[in-house]
């Protein structure tokens, strides 16, 4: 961690910040108190003017999303998305383990502003410690009157219930999250009509927000949206957590102002990751989780800003930067990612269920020395069937400046299937020669 402003990670070095007493000693629940001194409308406006962008992947402004709940339909629910499982992503778990009250306080602020009387905090099943910390924080907060009936002597009353999952990446998708919370298989719903804000949990208006998104609210309400927007850039105010993993000297999770800091700063900065591991050089990096098209050395100076990264053909997604040096085999890396999508496809849509499986199978056979000369075009063709290109014909590749279409065309119920195609095609475009070499090598061996 370095200098810069610390909003959500301010208490990470305090070992017992998950206990209510320490949380209170370090300014905890001040944001909720400020919120309760305002009208719900004023709180909502404060969040709207802060332009708090969602940190779960899509980067949609929270204040705007809250406004989508139809005005006369009650009750409304809040589902906190703590299902973090996008490859490379590691931040929500830390927030839940180290500062669960901050998250709870954020959820309470959202509930107050939007008229929600019941909150479900969905923690990923595999995160036992996060569940323990969240449960004990909830227990303490109920005892002390921060949750429950007539909170802090006001007429605001809300229940917060911890729910815990059982292992399925797709449940992180908001409509699947809701299905799961209704006791079903976590299979996404079609949007429209099932936008959670209109028809969510039990077909009632439901706000789904990510853990990091909500964890920003206590600070915003305590210090005001104006202070918040002085940090970061105009289109992406505030800070963001980034997990930088892979071939760097010091992998780590860092909170930095959005839009100001660059990929180069994070990867090479001494106060951050200290550069590529000794004796090696950068080959490529994933800028925003397993679903993001890859970036290369020429992208290093882009600022960490959703808009800019989107304009360059990829996404900041869930704040997961995976750094790969020259020892990394592009085909193996692609295979591992495709295996992930193929395993995690919920099976509802044919292009995703069948397509991701074929992508994995073909990459596997290339790695096993069984690749066929037209496998690369076959991969692109399957990709095109999952989510149509344009992927220009055989000549398409490193010499061709045409970028991978991004965001991919949505052909399925949720974006998982199409998301699998983008990183793979971005790799083929750049490293077609490596794919070809692998296939040729296999042919040479098997002759």
């Amino acid at each position, binding site marked *: 961690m370095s200098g810069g402003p610390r909003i959500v990670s301010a208490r990470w070095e305090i070992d017992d910040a998950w206990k209510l007493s320490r949380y209170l000693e370090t300014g905890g629940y001040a944001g909720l108190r400020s919120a309760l001194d305002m*009208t*719900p*409308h*004023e709180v*909502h406006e404060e969040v709207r003017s802060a332009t708090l962008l969602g940190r779960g992947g899509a980067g949609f402004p929270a204040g705007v999303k809250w406004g*989508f*709940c*139809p*005005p*006369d339909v*009650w*009750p*409304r629910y809040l589902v906190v998305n703590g299902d973090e*499982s*996008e*490859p*490379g*992503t*590691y931040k929500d*778990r830390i927030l839940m383990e180290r500062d669960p009250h901050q998250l709870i306080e954020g959820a309470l602020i959202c509930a107050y502003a*939007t*008229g929600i*009387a*019941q909150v479900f905090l969905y923690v*990923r*099943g595999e*995160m*036992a410690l996060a569940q*323990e910390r969240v*449960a004990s924080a909830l227990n303490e907060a*109920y005892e002390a009157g921060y*949750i*429950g*009936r007539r909170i802090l002597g*006001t*007429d*605001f*009353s809300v*229940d917060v219930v*911890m*729910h*815990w*999952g*059982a292992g399925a990446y797709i449940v992180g998708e908001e409509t699947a999250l809701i299905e*799961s919370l*209704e*006791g079903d*298989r*976590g299979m996404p719903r079609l949007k429209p009509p099932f936008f959670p804000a209109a028809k969510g949990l*039990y*077909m009632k208006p439901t706000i789904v927000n990510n853990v990091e998104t909500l964890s920003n609210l206590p600070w915003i309400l305590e210090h005001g949206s104006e202070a918040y927007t002085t940090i970061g850039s105009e289109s992406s105010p505030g800070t963001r957590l980034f*997990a930088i*993993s*892979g*071939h760097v000297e010091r*992998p780590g999770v860092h909170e930095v102002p959005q839009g100001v800091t660059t990929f180069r700063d994070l990867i090479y900065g001494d106060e951050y990751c200290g550069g590529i591991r000794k004796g090696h050089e950068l080959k490529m990096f994933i800028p925003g989780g*397993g679903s993001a098209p890859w970036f290369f050395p020429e992208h290093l100076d882009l600022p960490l800003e959703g808009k800019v990264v989107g304009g360059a053909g990829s996404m900041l997604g869930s704040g997961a930067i995976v750094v790969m040096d020259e020892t990394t085999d592009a085909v193996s*890396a692609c295979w*591992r990612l495709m295996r*992930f999508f193929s395993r995690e496809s919920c099976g509802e849509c044919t292009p995703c269920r069948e397509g991701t499986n074929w992508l994995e199978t073909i990459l596997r056979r290339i790695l096993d020395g069984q690749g066929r000369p037209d496998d690369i075009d076959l991969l692109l063709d399957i990709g095109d069937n999952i989510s149509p290109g344009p992927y220009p014909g055989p000549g398409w590749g490193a010499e061709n400046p045409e970028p991978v279409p991004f965001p991919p065309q949505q052909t399925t119920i949720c974006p998982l299937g199409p998301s699998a195609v983008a990183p793979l095609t971005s790799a083929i475009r750049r490293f077609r020669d490596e794919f070809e070499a692998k296939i040729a090598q296999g042919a040479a061996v098997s002759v």
Partner: protein
Amino acid sequence: MPRLTPENVRRAKEIISRYPRPRSALIPLLHLAQEQDGWLTEDAMEDVAELVGVTPAQVIGTASFYEMFKMEPVGRYVINVCTNISCLLLGGETLLQHAEATLGIKPGSTTEDGLFTLEDVECVAACTEAPCLQVNYRYFYRVTNDDFDRILADLRDGDLSRDIPEHGILSRVPQRIPTGKVANITPPEDQRVPVWIERAAPDKAAAGGDEA
């Protein structure tokens, strides 16, 4: 085959009471059954079905979707080695191979003594600490082959039993909502406008209604 114990039925009912619809408690209740037996027995699933008011087939339908639910007995310790991208880059595959060789089993199977089940899993959100693994969903970071051997030895000797409970037990801290503190378990039929919104009635737009 074990059914849910009376104590677990009581805990199940407490969990159900926090949800507007009993069926929402299904996954937590399956965890409870798995905590009791280490895996999901048919009898326990039937109990769960009855408790939340669905058919046993519906329970299996849900349970079979989720990786953590085990339909047959597993080892006392389930070892999940992450081989997804960040771990792969720093030796996750090698670690998995070492685990296979040491335990003499392939991912998805259990050692004969019933102590260990090995799994090759997707990202477990510890990517900066690669390569990593979980034992019964408790983390070990930057694991070398030697570390792995030490972890196995410690598990065998019971040296880690304080930190790592038997398979099936997740949070050792249950949520408890003290009686009298429950605000509003809000069923979808409850159409009332929350009081604090009603009070600020002139601001009704505050509560949404923007153009979508």
